[in-house]
């Protein structure tokens, strides 16, 4: 590793920066130390996720209940498959990146161009997949009721299958009257969060369907949600119900505890931001490779440095995947 690219003018000064005991160039070492600090940031986030999960361990939604969709397969329960696909995309783009680094060591410009291009494509596919995952999560699935205490209760039929709110609630807009300037109410705004049905409509639909039960956010000792009898269900909905929740946002989450949604958005969002900047840096380096910058420098070390960052993004995803989707 004696071929350091950047000459700092200190090569012969042992105590002035000329000595390299770690045999790594300045840029590469700084990339490693940046990665350490960024790894600590991510572990702080994941540790706080673990904290909240342990705090509400009997009411935490597991990913198998939440992420059950696959694009173009409507109504098919496919937990894990889509996120497994995303994981493979990211690992594969890591492979093409390390192949680009390898081609760079051998000074093969065309191969570096090809592999970097594939890496960028992989990153873009991953970002698109993540956007789809977010959209599906935000849009929601079955819908649920939030109680006054902030608990989520979900609807089941007598066989224990989930029932979507839209299937038993007559959707009409009778409750909603458009306000116009003539009413003198031009300053009244809709509330920020507006589900497609009101709580009263859901309550009527629930009372009219005798085969509907509710299940609670809390789980028994075997990890199954507690399912109430018809009488208990009616009492729960009528006495405690307050709000219809469809999908997930930062305040409400139809799948369970709202903190789950908060952490999901924050941690996968922060990771997605890293992927996005990684793609951007890769694109810049990609054009530099095409322009022959590193041919003139006689070294592709810059590819290696952005490669380190890209692998780190993959490394973080491995942990996010485990702690959000598997554990």
């Amino acid at each position: 590793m004696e071929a350091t690219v950047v000459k700092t003018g200190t090569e012969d000064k042992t105590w002035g920066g000329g000595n390299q005991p770690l045999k790594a160039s300045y840029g590469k070492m700084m990339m490693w130390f940046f990665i350490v600090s960024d790894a600590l940031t991510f572990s702080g986030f994941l540790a706080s996720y673990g904290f909240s999960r342990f705090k509400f361990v009997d009411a935490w939604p597991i990913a198998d209940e939440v992420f059950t969709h696959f694009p173009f397969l409507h109504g098919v329960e496919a937990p894990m498959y889509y996120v497994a696909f995303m994981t493979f995309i990211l690992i594969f783009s890591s492979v093409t990146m390390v192949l680009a680094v390898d081609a760079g060591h051998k000074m093969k410009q065309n191969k570096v161009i090809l592999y970097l291009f594939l890496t960028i494509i992989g990153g873009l596919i991953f970002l698109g997949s993540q956007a789809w995952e977010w959209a599906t999560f935000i849009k929601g699935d079955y819908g649920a009721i939030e109680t006054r205490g902030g608990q989520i209760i979900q609807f089941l039929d007598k066989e224990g299958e989930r029932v979507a709110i839209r299937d038993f609630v007559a959707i009409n807009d009778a409750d909603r009257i458009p306000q116009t300037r003539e009413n003198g109410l031009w300053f009244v705004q809709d509330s920020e969060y507006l589900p497609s049905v009101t709580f009263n409509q859901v309550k009527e639909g629930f009372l009219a369907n005798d085969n509907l039960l509710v299940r609670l956010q809390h789980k028994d000792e075997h990890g199954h949600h507690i399912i109430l009898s018809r009488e208990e269900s009616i009492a729960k909905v009528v006495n405690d119900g307050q709000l219809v929740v469809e999908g997930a946002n930062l305040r409400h989450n139809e799948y369970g505890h709202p903190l789950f949604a908060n952490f999901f958005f924050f941690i996968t969002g922060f990771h997605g931001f890293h992927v996005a900047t990684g793609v951007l840096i890769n694109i810049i380096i990609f054009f530099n490779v095409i322009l022959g910058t590193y041919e003139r420098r006689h070294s592709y070390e810059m590819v290696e440095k952005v490669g380190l960052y890209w692998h780190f993004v993959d490394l973080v995803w491995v942990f996010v995947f485990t702690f959000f989707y598997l554990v």
Partner: protein
Amino acid sequence: MAHEHKLAIFRGAVKFKSNVSKIWGVFAFLSIVTIIEVALGIIRPAFLIDTHFLALKLLNWIFILLTIVKAYYITWDFMHMRDETTGLRRAVIWTSIFLIAYLVVLVLIEGDYIFEVYKSGFIKFDF
């Protein structure tokens, strides 16, 4: 440029002829581990869920272990940690592992404590 790559993985049990074939070998290994993880995540075998070890389900320990194995090979072979000097390797790895393990253990114990406080009616100890 004299880039020497160490081409043996699994403590020398598998040795590759070139760096490129090593990359594909590691990719195959990481894929197998991921497939095992996903399969376990879909099946969720009952005996692994019902068995607990150190406050965690055995299944979750398996996931965490496999994740660390994957992280090791990504760092060592994709990020070329295997080829770096011992000093750089230790500066990066030991620092991170110590700080992360410290944080995670303390924070998880605290989370579990608060869970117990909530469960037992806001009184954890009653002298």
